[in-house]
Structure formats: structure tokens, C-alpha cells
């Protein structure tokens, strides 16, 4: 699980152009959105796109996304459970 969390941190930093942010800066138990990372609604869609292309997970329900994006740890658990 920890290596998946690190993997996701790297993808988020790259995918959202978070220049100057290192993996150590991201707390896996804090919400991904609505915090100091300054991510917006497009970024949420970007994360959905990354999950589809990199892990084969298709999200169609907003409620599913909200739960999976609650924190990085929640996301890692979601990915581990649903990846194809």
C-alpha cells in the first residue's frame, strides 16, 4: 500500500504541474482537494482520467469519486481494490 501511495504522489505532482512540491510534502491522510495543494475542478477530472488510463478504472458516479478522493490513502485503497 505504501509503495502505491508513493506512486500516486508522483503521478499527482506530475499530472497537476505541482512545481516545487515533493512527495514528502503531501500528507496521505489529508483531503486531496480543498487544501494547500490548490487543486481545482479540472484537476479532479484529470485524476479521473489518470485512473482510467493508468489503472483501467472507469468512474462514472460523482459519489464514487468523492469517496475515493477523500485522501491519498483512500485513493490508494480504491485503486488497489479496483485496478484492472
Amino acid at each position: 500500500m505504501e509503495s502505491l501511495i508513493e506512486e500516486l504522489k508522483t503521478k499527482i505532482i506530475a499530472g497537476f504541474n505541482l512545481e516545487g512540491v515533493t512527495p514528502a510534502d503531501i500528507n496521505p491522510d489529508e483531503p486531496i482537494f480543498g487544501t494547500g495543494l490548490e487543486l481545482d475542478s479540472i484537476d479532479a477530472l484529470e485524476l479521473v482520467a489518470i485512473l482510467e488510463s493508468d489503472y483501467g478504472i472507469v468512474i462514472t458516479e460523482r459519489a464514487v469519486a468523492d469517496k475515493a478522493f477523500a485522501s491519498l490513502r483512500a485513493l490508494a485503497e480504491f485503486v488497489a481494490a479496483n485496478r484492472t
Partner: protein
Amino acid sequence: MKDLTIHAASYLGPEGFGNDETGLRAWPAPLKENLSRGELDGLHWSLLSASDPSRFLRMDLMCRIGFMATELLAVDFDALPEARRESLGVIVESFTGSLNTDIRFAQTPRPSIFAYTLPSTVIGEICIRHRLKGPVLSLIAPDTDGANALTEAAEWLRAGDAEMVLCLGIEAINVSTAIPFPCRKLSRHTAGTARRCCWDGLKICPAKNCSSPARLGTFAESCVPCRNTLAKTNRGKLRLHNTLWNP
């Protein structure tokens, strides 16, 4: 264009960057390496103290260089009263448009890039940054020496459709890909070849049977014409490659 005053002008390209007051400055050495490979992506925004780095970093190449060329003008848009900003028009002209980002998106479709597969998005970015609400126009032209945007701006100013107009001429191509696209003379050669033309200082395009100067590469220029009688356009000592500055 006799009744047009250029209030400020800037340039950003392989040779360097600057505005009509500073003149053309060479890129710092490490960046020059990137540039010789045809990459402006590595240009650090902090060089020009962009005010909103997170917004800037989301932008694609075309928007970044258009945005930076506008910042380089050193015009304090924010100090303008709201009425002025409401009547400040923006015109962008480009030959390649969003092709650079189009190719990226076609290869790896991502929602964060999609909005940038339009040549007019740079207008949106600049208007958001400086809260400009004037008339807008986005042209794709095979002969972009800046004349198209300035001609339209002159008409807007004459008709009273705008008090000031921001004109942008942008070409943003740095995709190393085998996808061929035609140069201005309407013949074909590969993107890699075209880039070499440009970095060699605008020599003739090496593609067979093509004698046009290849102007593909990354450059942008912007200027702010206002409604006043024209004194002189050729104010700066910028070494520019087109007829924009020669009255």
C-alpha cells in the same frame, strides 16, 4: 496604420526576449541549451515574475509564451480603471495556432489539456489575469507578420469599438514528432527539419523545392496600440524578423 500609436511592444523568441524600452536581452546560458533544442517549456516563469505560478504552470506552451509576452510589455493593466479594462480589446493571430497542444492531446487525451487545443484560449488566460472585458478576435493566418492583428486593431480603434487593443502574434511549436505539416509556401517537411531552420537563424527551409524562410519555432510578440496619432513605430532597438516594426 497611420493613426495608430504603439503604446508598448514586446518580443519573446529564440534570439531572446525584451520590450521596446529594454531592448532584446539574450536568454541566460542554461536556458539557451534548452532553446537550441527547440524547447521553451523549460523557461522558468520566475524569470518574469508571473504573479500566479499555479495558473501559469497549467498553461500550454502557446498560452505561456503569449502570457509572458504580455507581462513583458510592463503595462500596468491592473492600474487601469474598470471602464478602460472593459474597452480593452484583445486580438491574437497565429499560423500554427494550437497545433503543438493538439498533437500532444491527440497522443494523450487529458482534460487539463483539452481547453488548450484552441488558439483563442490564450485570450481567455490574459483576460482572466488582467480582468479585460473588451471585444475579442482570434485569427489563423498563413502570413502572420503581425499585420493582420494590427489592421483589425486599427479598425476597432477608428470605429470606437475599443480604446486600447492588445495584439498578439504567436507561434508555438516544439513537438518533436514525425507528423509533417506544411510551411508557409504550402509544401511539406517534417517538424524536426522546420525547427532546425528556425534555430539556424531563419535560413531558407531545407525541404526540397521550398524556398520560403521557415518561420516555425517558438516566438511571440505583443503590443498595445492605442487611439492616438502615430509618431513612430520603430522605437526600440529590437532585432526583429518581420516587417512589424518598419513603417
